[in-house]
């Protein structure tokens, strides 16, 4: 197992180098000079422009700029935002817990509903349940996020008044950030009602963000289950007179899990992309919105640093998924 982990870790290095280079070039490949964008309609004088260029290091050749950036990254310095003038690292980790909390809850929502839905659909293949669940999944997959979010807000917050419209917790509660995870912080604050307020605020955004992964997981579980259910050993188990619950739940599902876990791992990328819209609509102070704002402002350090950190997160998740394969299927870790 150790060798397996090490070999996976080694693949990290070239990926990391590649991501550093791509994140650096990506934002610079976009047209638009950050200094001119900053000055807006008001414009600025040539001297001022030269001064700022120098301050931001734009007067240096591009490879020098990259080298400065790269050596900074190795020392854990991602630079300072042009706009807020604060270190990118600090900004990222101030906002990341919010995105992580939302993503985890969205994923729990997607897995808890998606797995059983897929299994039920597979077992009832071609019957009413199967058709109903899979059509619903298709709708969920195709729905525009912003539309779905506004619909839920109008119905559940506007008309029914069950959930708050947006934000992470009611403004009545005020306590310092401890972990950055509102569910944990609200519990730790000991203030009555804070936790339930945080939970209610999380509900709609988690559903919105989890909808697409939910649909994908349900469909993937169904097709993986169908494949496994056709295998010889399942037929043997049935012939032995094993109960359908044991066959589906233990023999089939466990083997169907590999492709499903792959999909769950890949969904992390989808979650981060979906978070951009979800966070904007629900005023959720996470990294999605932060990145979008920075791209529009051509805030180079934030965009390149943020992309790098997100890529690293996705790589860590993929590594975890790889290791889960090894745990679920011992054959893989021995290869």
């Amino acid at each position, binding site marked *: 197992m150790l060798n397996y982990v090490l070999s996976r870790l080694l693949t990290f290095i070239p990926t990391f180098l590649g991501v550093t280079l791509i994140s650096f070039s990506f934002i610079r490949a976009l047209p638009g000079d950050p200094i*001119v964008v*900053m000055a807006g309609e008001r414009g600025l004088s040539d001297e001022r422009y030269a001064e700022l260029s120098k301050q931001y290091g734009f007067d240096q050749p591009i490879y020098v700029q990259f080298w400065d950036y790269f050596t900074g990254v190795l020392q854990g310095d991602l630079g300072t935002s042009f706009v807020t003038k604060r270190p990118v690292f600090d900004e990222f980790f101030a906002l990341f817990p919010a995105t992580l909390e939302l993503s985890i809850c969205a994923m729990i929502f997607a897995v808890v509903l998606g797995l059983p839905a897929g299994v039920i659909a597979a077992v009832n293949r071609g019957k009413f349940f199967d058709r109903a669940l899979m059509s619903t999944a298709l709708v969920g997959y195709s729905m525009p996020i912003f539309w779905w979010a506004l619909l839920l*807000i109008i119905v559940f917050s506007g008309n029914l008044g069950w959930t708050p419209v947006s*934000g992470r917790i009611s403004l009545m509660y005020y306590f310092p950030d401890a972990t950055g995870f509102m569910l944990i912080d609200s519990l730790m604050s000991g203030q009555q009602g804070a936790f339930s307020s945080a939970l*209610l605020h999380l509900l709609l955004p988690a559903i919105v963000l989890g909808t697409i992964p939910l649909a994908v997981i349900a469909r993937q579980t169904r097709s993986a289950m169908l494949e496994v259910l056709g295998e010889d050993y399942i037929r043997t188990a049935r012939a032995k007179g094993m109960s359908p619950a044991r066959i589906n739940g233990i023999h089939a599902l466990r083997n169907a899990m590999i492709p499903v876990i792959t999909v769950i791992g890949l969904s992390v990328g989808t979650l981060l992309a979906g978070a951009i819209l979800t966070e904007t*609509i*629900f*005023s959720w102070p996470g990294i999605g919105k932060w990145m979008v704002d920075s791209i529009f402002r051509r805030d180079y350090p934030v965009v390149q640093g943020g992309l790098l950190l997100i890529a690293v997160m996705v790589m860590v998740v993929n590594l975890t998924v790889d290791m889960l394969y090894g745990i679920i299927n011992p054959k893989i870790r021995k290869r």
Partner: protein
Amino acid sequence: MSFKHTLAGSVLLAAMGMSASAQSLVYCSEGSPEGFDPALYTSGTTFDASSHPIYDHLAEFKVGTTEVEPGLAESWEISEDGKTVTFKLREGVQFHSNDLFTPTRDMNADDVIFSFDRQGNPDNPYNSYSGGTWEYYGGMSMPELIESIEKVDDYTVRFNLTRPEAPFIANMAMDFASILSKEYADAMLEAGTPEMLNQKPIGTGPFKFQDYQKDAVIRYVRNDDYYGDKARVQNLIFAITPDASVRYQKVQAGECHVMAYPNPADIQAMKDAEDIVVMEQEGLNVGYLAYNTKVEPFDDPKVRKALNHAIDKQAIIDVVFQGSGQIAKNPIPPTMWSYNEAIEDDNYDPEKAKQMLEEAGVSDLSMKIWAMPVQRPYNPNARRMAELIQADMAEIGVDVEIVSYEWGEYLERSKAEDRDGAVLLGWTGDNGDPDNFLAVLLSCDAVGGSNRAMWCNEEFDELVNKAKTLSSQEERAELYKQAQEVFKDQAPWATIAHSVVYMTMRPEVDNYVVHPLGGHIFNQVGLK
């Protein structure tokens, strides 16, 4: 559920020693501030969160007007030649305190000098803090204008200027001219954390900064030692809500009291709703189409005038602004003093336009129109606007090609004196002074810069330059009115529209006033 919440919240606030929740005014703001030192930034969102609640200025704009009244300076004197301005400061004004700092003295001349010196003097240790670029200080020509600032005594400051400048007092009421504490700055410099000036602001304003959770919430508490009329609510909370539809939902659900920038499409429904109040005012801005007056045939005023007659502005107001705009006939907005009511607009008349083009000897004209890639209050959808103008022009036989560039490129390229095509752009006023529109956008000096029409007219320039040196507002207004006549006659732009600014709020909000300069100010606002 929401009732339970409110109840729990009130109990909580009471327990924490604050007054009841009715004393907390919640404003759903549209974005996050970039920081809390207003001089470092240029966006209205940042000023709303910093300059207005936390800081004071030597002079202040009277709420709801562009008139200037005394602020931290209780009076000022301008010398005969207009080149020396002496401010007499108010005594007994206290700075806020926070967990890092408690002031040991009142606000005085040192603070005023520090607030400006850090922006203009490269040797000031704060000149380069937080990547300071001092955009507004530069943009308002302060480096060229201010020769020196002297401390006459603890409560008297003298500004020596290089030339007489009538709008100078109004400039002192602008956000970049916020007065910061030198004592706090020194303390933070010594502690090695100068950036705290920008992150944990200390001012003299009606609200004290309490806390900012990035992209989520900003909290302020009332400054009970405020020198002027104290704020009417105990707590001011900004709930940052970027999506306009969501902001409206929050106002309806009672999660916010006031919101800015509603969707134009929602405004009618808001006006119809019983428990929602909508306030409106013309914005201090103008959206225009600037011809390149240095390129044939647009160097001929007759041609420009003819094209102006071809544009159906009402259709633009209806379609692009969805009604939340008003036709512009002058280059300055109607809320500004010296606005020339008497001027007659170039009405929509395609036949006349055709005839005028013929008279000018122009046929088979084709031109480019530049459409901005971004939304602005003065132009919510430049692409659509360009398409409408394209259709109008087709009607008089003028062929229009629409071009667009990335925003930074757009701003840069549109300055080129040999630019091909007319540019859609606009301007939002800074200090309520007509000079800020007429000189900045249309003077000879601004050609190759913010004068996108490349228009240099001697008569106009003389009027505007002369107005700058006079101190009597009446005399100045007279000159600006004449300048507007020259402008209309020469037509370097097609003036398109002024936006209308809407504010949406709950009925319990008391005494909110829409500020013509665009800021959102809560000092005087209470809750019924």
